[in-house]
């Protein structure tokens, strides 16, 4: 019989909607891959902060003695070194979404593109507003990801007449989205658009706007591709005319590719960049997964 | 003879390895006051806690009106114990404490007015001026004791057990208490009364039971005993002359401590006195006179707004107990449980806490501590079978001894002792008097605050009398006698400060 191959998967714990989706897709992929490849053993661990994720990497190597690692780093910088250590022990390393500070480490990079996500969002808002208007921005949790998105966004609208009235952290969380938006609404008599950057936040924002009865005044752009939002886009809801994809499913894709490479020895290219697709009523159907929790 | 309302047969109790009660029989009849006396650690409180259901007896049976009852039932039978150690919730108000566990209510809600009125009335009967809405933690020990009594008195009583109620009371308050006891007696309540003050026992009780080292020594009717007989039964030997002969220091003895115009806001106004080397200076006064507060002011434990303090003629700044200790002044608080001892900590840690610096600057020399503890147990005759127990496990009197030992650890040249013999048995009392006497002879200056007139008269070379915050007189020589002191304490005499009265 063929000796089994062990693939360790390390991801952030489900601390907000997107990571929740991430966990779900990872577990789906685990089940499915282990069925497809009897010789493959997937070990999935999730960590609630960078330090813990580093711990998990140590454990995956020292205890489970994995052959390959698929990691979605909590944060880029702090995990670069721990991942390098895994690499140095001759493991195959797949990095997902957040690039390490030293790209030399990874054998495979499956990336969502945060700057692009900000860019696409900015472009959409810019043209929908015809190049000028007042908007508010709700940011995520203070992290590199959030910065990349916001910086790209700001850079994109730099030379337009779009004015950013206010910016607050909403921690990729519905309640905070609701809270912050309520206050924005109280503070600004006139808002043309809201960039919520994330669909969880967006859902909170929607409620706040509806409560204030100002649906017709503005539109909201979220991000990620949560089913409820895609649904609204499909039913072309004026308040949520579009969404920008940043699918948590990318983890499944990464696991899949890695597994195929490990078991079937299928050749791979070094990078798979999933570009941040703009979802509009036209193409919404194809991105709608009703049975995903996310 | 009426048969007993409450009776205990063959009560034994052990705490882990140590047995503290050995098959003790005890009973009390309705309408009788039965006094229980014995040395510190004899087992009085333990026995009473068993009667009142706070402790289980290891062996023996309890009967109420002939029917056996268990620890649980005591409360409902109307058996109430006034603890030797305070048993009040400090954060709660007087009224809340008095009714704790048996609040008066209207429907679901508390009937607060009724309770306030009732509390007011009970406290009134006890002639205790405290406001039912005051927080217990703001009261003095004496007031707390009165609140305890009020708490007990406000219940429908069948048996009232009082464990050294007068230890923290002054004469006048005790008189009030006695009136209460007599009234209860007439109502057919059975009263058990523990005290080390044998004159009180003689005055109030009908029968006396004596415990020694957990054994029943005798139960006799009070009429057949005089105080010396009682003392002899307690201690097992005769006790002669309580107080050693005074030998005051020479008139030209140097003044070691001189207090000028000290004012403690809310408590003491413009108090001044001198303390000479080798002198025992007594402080007399009624509760609230502010003696404690004056001393605490001097020690920097309370805010002073005016006044200077000099050691050996030189002014010293005393902002806290640390400074005082550095100046060779030590203070023994009247509030043993609240400010004196860490009841949860072992004897050793309590003993050395004040003088810890002397047991190694960097690391504590635990061997030295052990040695100190052995010495203290010997010198102060602390009765404890297992030195490992926490201070809270000591009998009341033995806690007092431990506190005294703790205070002396800093080898002060000035000792201020607030209520030195509070809760101490006659035998040990005498030891302590000798000890103080001896300190003075060794040239140490001693201040004794006491609410026991006899103690002041028997010990002090000079007596400072205070009344509601001011010093009303300083008595010397023959002037040190009861009437004179009372007159000053009650304001009948001497208000011009530092009028030195002698005869």
């Amino acid at each position, binding site marked *: 019989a063929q000796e089994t191959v062990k693939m360790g998967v390390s991801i952030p714990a*489900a601390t907000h909607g997107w990571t929740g989706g991430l966990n779900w897709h990872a577990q789906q992929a685990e089940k499915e891959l282990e069925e497809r490849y009897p010789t493959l053993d997937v070990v999935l661990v999730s960590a609630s902060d960078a330090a813990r994720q580093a711990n998990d990497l140590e454990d995956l190597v020292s205890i489970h003695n994995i052959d390959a690692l698929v990691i979605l780093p909590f944060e880029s910088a702090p995990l670069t070194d721990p991942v390098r250590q895994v690499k140095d022990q001759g493991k195959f390393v797949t990095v997902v979404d957040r690039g390490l500070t030293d790209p030399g480490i990874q054998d495979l990079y499956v990336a969502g593109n945060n700057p692009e996500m900000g860019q696409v969002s900015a472009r959409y808002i810019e043209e929908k507003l015809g190049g000028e208007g007042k908007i508010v921005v709700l940011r995520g949790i203070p992290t590199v990801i959030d910065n990349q998105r916001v910086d790209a966004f700001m850079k994109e609208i730099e030379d337009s007449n779009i004015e950013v009235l*206010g910016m607050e952290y909403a921690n990729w969380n*519905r309640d905070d989205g609701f809270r912050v938006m309520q206050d924005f609404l109280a503070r600004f008599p006139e808002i043309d658009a809201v960039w919520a950057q994330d669909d969880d936040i967006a859902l909170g924002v929607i409620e706040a706007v509806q409560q204030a009865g100002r649906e017709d005044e503005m539109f909201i752009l979220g991000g990620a591709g949560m089913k409820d939002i895609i649904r609204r886009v499909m039913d072309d809801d004026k308040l949520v005319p579009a969404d920008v994809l940043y699918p948590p499913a990318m983890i499944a894709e990464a696991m899949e590719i890695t597994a195929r490479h490990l078991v079937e020895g299928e050749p791979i290219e070094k990078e798979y960049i999933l570009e941040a697709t703009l979802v509009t009523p036209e193409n919404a159907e194809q991105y709608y997964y009703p049975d995903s929790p996310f | 003879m009426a048969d007993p309302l409450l009776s205990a047969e063959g009560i034994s109790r052990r705490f882990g390895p140590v047995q503290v009660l050995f098959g003790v029989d005890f009973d009390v009849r309705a309408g009788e006051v039965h006094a229980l006396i014995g040395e510190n650690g004899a087992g009085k409180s333990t026995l009473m806690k068993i009667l009142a259901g706070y402790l289980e007896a290891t062996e023996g049976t309890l009967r109420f009106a002939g029917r056996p009852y268990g620890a649980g039932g005591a409360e409902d039978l109307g058996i109430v114990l006034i603890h030797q150690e305070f048993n009040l919730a400090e954060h*709660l108000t007087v009224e809340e404490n008095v009714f*704790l566990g048996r609040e008066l209510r209207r429907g679901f809600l508390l009937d607060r007015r009724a309770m306030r009125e009732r509390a007011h009335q009970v406290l009134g009967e006890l002639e205790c001026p405290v406001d039912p809405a005051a927080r217990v933690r703001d009261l003095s020990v004496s007031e707390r004791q009165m609140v305890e009594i009020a708490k007990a008195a406000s219940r429908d009583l069948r048996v009232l057990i009082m464990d050294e109620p007068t230890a923290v009371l002054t004469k006048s308050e005790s008189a009030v208490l006695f009136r209460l006891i007599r009234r209860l007696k007439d109502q057919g309540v059975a009263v058990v009364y523990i005290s080390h003050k044998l004159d009180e026992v003689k005055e109030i009780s009908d029968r006396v039971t004596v415990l020694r080292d957990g054994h029943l020594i005798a139960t006799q009717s009070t009429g057949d005993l005089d105080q010396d007989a009682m003392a002899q039964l307690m201690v097992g030997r005769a006790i002669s002359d309580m107080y050693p002969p005074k030998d005051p220091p020479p008139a030209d003895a140097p003044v070691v401590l001189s207090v000028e115009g000290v004012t403690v806001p809310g408590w003491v106004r413009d108090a001044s006195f001198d303390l000479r080397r080798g002198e025992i200076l007594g402080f007399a006064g009624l509760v609230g006179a502010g003696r404690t507060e004056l001393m605490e002011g001097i020690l920097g434990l*309370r*805010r002073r707004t005016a006044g200077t303090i000099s050691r050996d003629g030189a002014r010293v700044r005393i902002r806290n107990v640390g400074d005082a200790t550095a100046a060779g002044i030590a203070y023994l608080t009247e509030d043993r449980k609240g400010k004196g001892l860490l009841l949860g900590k072992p004897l050793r840690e309590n003993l050395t806490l004040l003088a810890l610096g002397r047991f190694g600057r960097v690391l504590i020399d635990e061997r030295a501590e052990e040695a100190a503890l052995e010495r203290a147990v010997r010198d102060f005759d602390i009765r404890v079978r297992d030195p490992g127990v926490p201070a809270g496990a000591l009998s009341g009197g033995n806690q007092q001894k431990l506190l005294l030992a703790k205070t002396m650890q800093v080898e002060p040249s000035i000792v201020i002792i607030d209520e030195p013999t509070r809760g101490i048995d006659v035998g040990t009392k005498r030891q302590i008097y000798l000890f103080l006497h001896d300190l003075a002879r060794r040239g140490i200056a001693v201040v004794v605050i006491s609410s026991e007139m006899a103690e002041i008269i028997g010990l002090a070379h000079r007596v400072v009398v205070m009344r509601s915050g001011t010093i009303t007189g300083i008595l010397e020589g023959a002037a040190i006698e009861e009437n004179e002191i009372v007159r000053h304490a009650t304001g009948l005499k001497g208000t011009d400060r530092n009028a030195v009265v002698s005869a």
Partner: protein
Amino acid sequence: MQSSAPDTARRPSAGLDLKVYGPFLALAALILLGVLVNPVFLSPGNIINVLTRTAFIGIIAVGMTFVITTGNIDLSVGSMAAFAAGVAIVAMNALAGPLGSGWAVVLAGVAVALAFSLAAGFLNGILVTKGRIEAFIVTLGTMGIFRSLVTYLADGGTLTLDSTIRATYRPVYYGGLFGISYPILLFFAVAAVGALIMYRTPFGRYCAAIGSNEDVARYSAIKVDRVKLLAFVFQGLCVALAVIVYVPRLGSASATTGLLWELEAIAAVIIGGTMLKGGHGRVWGTVAGAVILTLIDNILNLTGAISVYLNGAIQGVIIIVAVLLQRSGASRR
């Protein structure tokens, strides 16, 4: 300790009075600040929003006041809320078939939320009293348990209430009487009842007595364990009530629902003048404390002035200053 701080000894009431009024002074000061920052602050809309938001934490904090008064603490309230909300949503979605999407199903959901929260509170209480474990540990444990149960329930994602049921339920958060939203009304109802229980019933006194000195309480024939247990159950009830007005707001629960609510609730209680060590409960103070916390947040959002990064710092400073203000007041007396 602070108890017989010598200088307070003579005037028993003073210190306490300030513990009572302090939080309200702080609140007033904060309102003043808000007005200065941005006049919109006083607009009825904003006031209603803020108070409505306060409701969750506020209601939970009222329960917390009792737990803390007995000398315990409950770290699990946040995840308990998430858990109850999650279970209620699942139940309602499941029952939508048989019961339709009318009030029947909503009431069923409410019942489920109540049942679970009360059970959770009971669990905490039993472990603390019978298990004789520090409340801190017990509730730290149950915090983790409830939290991950809801994560499990939601498959890591979000549990969303069926939109038709939501439509029925929605008014419970967004509707109101005479322009005052139901959550606010519930909040003050709970506070009023809480105050009544704390100050006017034996139970309230027993909580304080136990927190102040457990032995004394026991000697006074108070069923200490039962009272503590009841306090935790009451906390559970309050959580349930908070959940009942929380669910209709966004109609969803997830792993992040109620994150750190425990900290806010405890902070509200302490800012309100209740002592963390127990022995003293101030229900109205807690209400003030809760409002203070939301106000800080609201005021920060109303001013664009400061870097978003510094919000936390300013919050911290305001909290400390607010309390410092009370204390210094106390010593001035």
